[in-house]
């Protein structure tokens, strides 16, 4: 299958120039390169401009509530661990509403690929500050400037024990596609924060802003070193792209003896014999 084959046929309603287009293309390209059939993919989307991804992929899809992508992903993946699960949400969705689920999904190391469209702003609700908006920035909900310290989501992930932490950028589609492929191939929770310019409301975090600051991690970078990773994540002037930290760890579904032989879907909904249990109540 070619990348084009993953088009759903619905025309995106993102603003022209929105970073979400690049993420869309990168996902389609990654699925095509990996030769995964759309019937075996579930795309779980949150609420926000990011969540509209659901409409544009020729795959199974679940458009959940605001902030609740990862619990859906957990239910889906444990029920059918053969499926490829790709999760899309915004920074408001994942780091605001859903930050608790984010940390717990990391603890579980569920085998899904989590793409956060991080535009440092709320897009769909027309431009309020998000948890990653810098201090001082004025927005609709913070006309006097943000006074909260921004969240560093990659640091949160690393500290919570994430073993696949990466950063991508909408201005680097090929690079992003490769990251998503690595993420899908990774046997565990692959978390990719994606710098995504919102051309309408996120004027500060523009393509120019990022183009001046980003650089790609190369082969000399050792992503298995936790201290290196922490250092990269807290860099002030420059922004590193690529896999920042990666390590092998037991994947969640594999820790369930119930799932050793088959997917859960195949054993559910059949009349069970419970006589042995009932005897214990006699």
């Amino acid at each position: 299958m070619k990348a084009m084959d993953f088009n759903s046929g619905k025309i995106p309603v993102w603003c022209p120039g929105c970073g979400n287009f690049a993420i869309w293309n990168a996902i389609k390209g990654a699925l095509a390169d990996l030769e995964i059939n759309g019937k075996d993919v579930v795309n779980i989307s949150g609420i926000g401009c990011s969540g509209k991804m659901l409409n544009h992929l020729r795959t199974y899809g679940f458009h959940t509530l605001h902030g609740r992508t990862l619990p859906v992903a957990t239910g889906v993946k444990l029920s059918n661990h053969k499926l490829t699960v790709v999760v899309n949400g915004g920074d408001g969705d994942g780091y605001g509403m859903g930050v608790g689920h984010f940390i717990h999904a990391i603890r579980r190391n569920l085998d899904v690929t989590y793409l956060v469209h991080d535009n440092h702003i709320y897009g769909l609700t027309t431009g309020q500050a998000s948890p990653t908006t810098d201090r001082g920035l004025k927005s609709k909900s913070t006309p006097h400037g943000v006074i909260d310290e921004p969240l560093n989501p990659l640091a949160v992930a690393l500290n919570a024990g994430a073993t696949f932490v990466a950063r991508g950028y909408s201005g680097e589609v090929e690079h992003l596609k490769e990251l998503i492929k690595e993420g899908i191939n990774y046997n565990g929770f692959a978390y990719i924060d994606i710098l995504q310019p919102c051309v309408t409301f996120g004027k500060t975090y523009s393509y120019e802003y990022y183009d001046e600051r980003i650089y790609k991690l190369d082969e000399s970078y050792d992503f298995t070193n936790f201290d290196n990773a922490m250092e990269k994540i807290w860099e002030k002037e420059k922004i590193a792209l690529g896999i920042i930290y990666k390590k092998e760890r037991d994947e969640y579904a594999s820790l369930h003896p119930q799932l050793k032989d088959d997917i859960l879907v195949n054993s559910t909904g059949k009349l069970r014999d419970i006589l042995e249990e009932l005897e214990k109540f006699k």
Partner: protein
Amino acid sequence: MSVITWKIGGPAGFGIMSAGPMFAMALKRSGYSVHGYPEYPSIIRGGYNNYHVTFSDKPVFSVYNRCDILVALDKVVFDSETITKNMIVIADFDNIKGTEDLECKKVNIPFKKILKDNELPDIVKNSIALGVSAKILGIDEEILFTLFKENYPAKVLDMNISAAKIGMEFCLDEMKFKVPKGNSNFKDNLLMTGNEAIALGAVKAGLGFYSTYPMTPASSILHYLAKLEEKYGIIVKHTEDEISGIIMAIGASYAGVRAMTGTSGGGLSLMTEGVGLAAITETPLVIALSQRPGPATGMPTWTEQADLKFVLNISQDEFVKIVLTPGDLNELFYMTFEAFNLADRYQVPVFVLTDKFLSESHFCEAIFSDNGLKIDRGFIFEGNSEAPMEFFPRYKEVENGIPMKSNPGTPGGLYKAPGNEHDEFGFVATDSRTRIKNQDRRFKKEEFIKKELPLPRLYGAKEAEITFVCWGSTKQPLMEALKHTDKFNFFHFSAVNPIDWEKVKELLKDKNLVAIETNYTGQLASVIAEKTGIVIKDKYLKYDGRPFFVEEIIEFVKRGN
């Protein structure tokens, strides 16, 4: 008929909640029908715990206020219980001040001295008490010791058996209590809690996924299912919160697995948005709700039936939901089983309502049978391997408003399940035609569900001075009270929504109706008024965290004359 009640009480941490149910089981195995009712505060040490057993050679259903035999493991019992003349009270009277003048039949067991002389630890006090109780009631000691063996780890077993034996030795013949002979009919009955019946109904129905966050009095569903998960190949998850609990279950159900969540009112408040998500995505889901008093944290370990209207109106906008209100173990088991069929067939949220009284008390009923149990997974798309990447009209009506499900992985079954209003393929849609078409289609299901749900059933004589109207657990005290008077009969609603209200109206008309509920406003009565126009003016309501005691109902009926 003789109904005997035995109660054991003491501070939390004294093993009341293991000794009580064990003794209830000893009585059942001796051939009695048994009911066991626990009361405890929401603290782990200190505070007053008690377990009240009612038994008889005829079926018993519920708890009395009266206590015939009281085992008081500590002074706190005398601060909390009303001691009457006819009661047999088992206690270490020499060591409890203020009991000298009590008028009751005292069975003085020197617990303190026994423990000291035999170098036994405090924790076996409850076993001494069980030994004494067994002797007084003529329970075969082998029955008791077999139960000890089943319940205690090997290293403390002998210690508990010897403690019980020492207790027995202190009983003189004149202390014995006259009891009717046990009746072999009950030996094969089950003695279990309501939550266990719910869990087993779900396991029987092929439950695949249970996810939730602990909240009394629903937690024991989680605990029991967690114990069974590997044996039956179920996934049971204690999630980070209730929001995750319900959403995970929705994810599992979307993937094709039978899924359930369970909680109490506070947890359901958090789950509310998720219920709406299940509704609009038409993802089958079973929700067990065990009610307790109070908004917010309320009274965690006590009982009330005040969430009926919350559930009926849950989540924004309007959608079809099924609300089942079973009243005994059998109804809990079979209705939970059927809840999964209803959820799969109609693709709507299905609630199974219970409350602390029904969830955590022990009830004694005949074994559940397989007869007539059938699994119905509803309409599921088989797939089309010719065109694996085709979108599928998941939300197109197949029959009676019901569309066909397609599980992810099915070739040619691609679709989107959105929390947004959507077209047949699940793509977001906001045009007025689509919206109206969807609402009309989804509500069409109601007509068909109505025909499947049970109408209120009449218990007692056909005609009576008073006809109580109740739902859920209140069936139990009414059944017990019926044994004492024929002045009333009662209608029990084991389902409230959607049911055929026209038929209900026929059933209820021309009767002297009294609503009996454990809530402040009479919620079922209000639903009946809304649906049928029948206004039930007389209400007998209780909202102190306790179930109706049998004597209270008898009193009420007498006063009614």
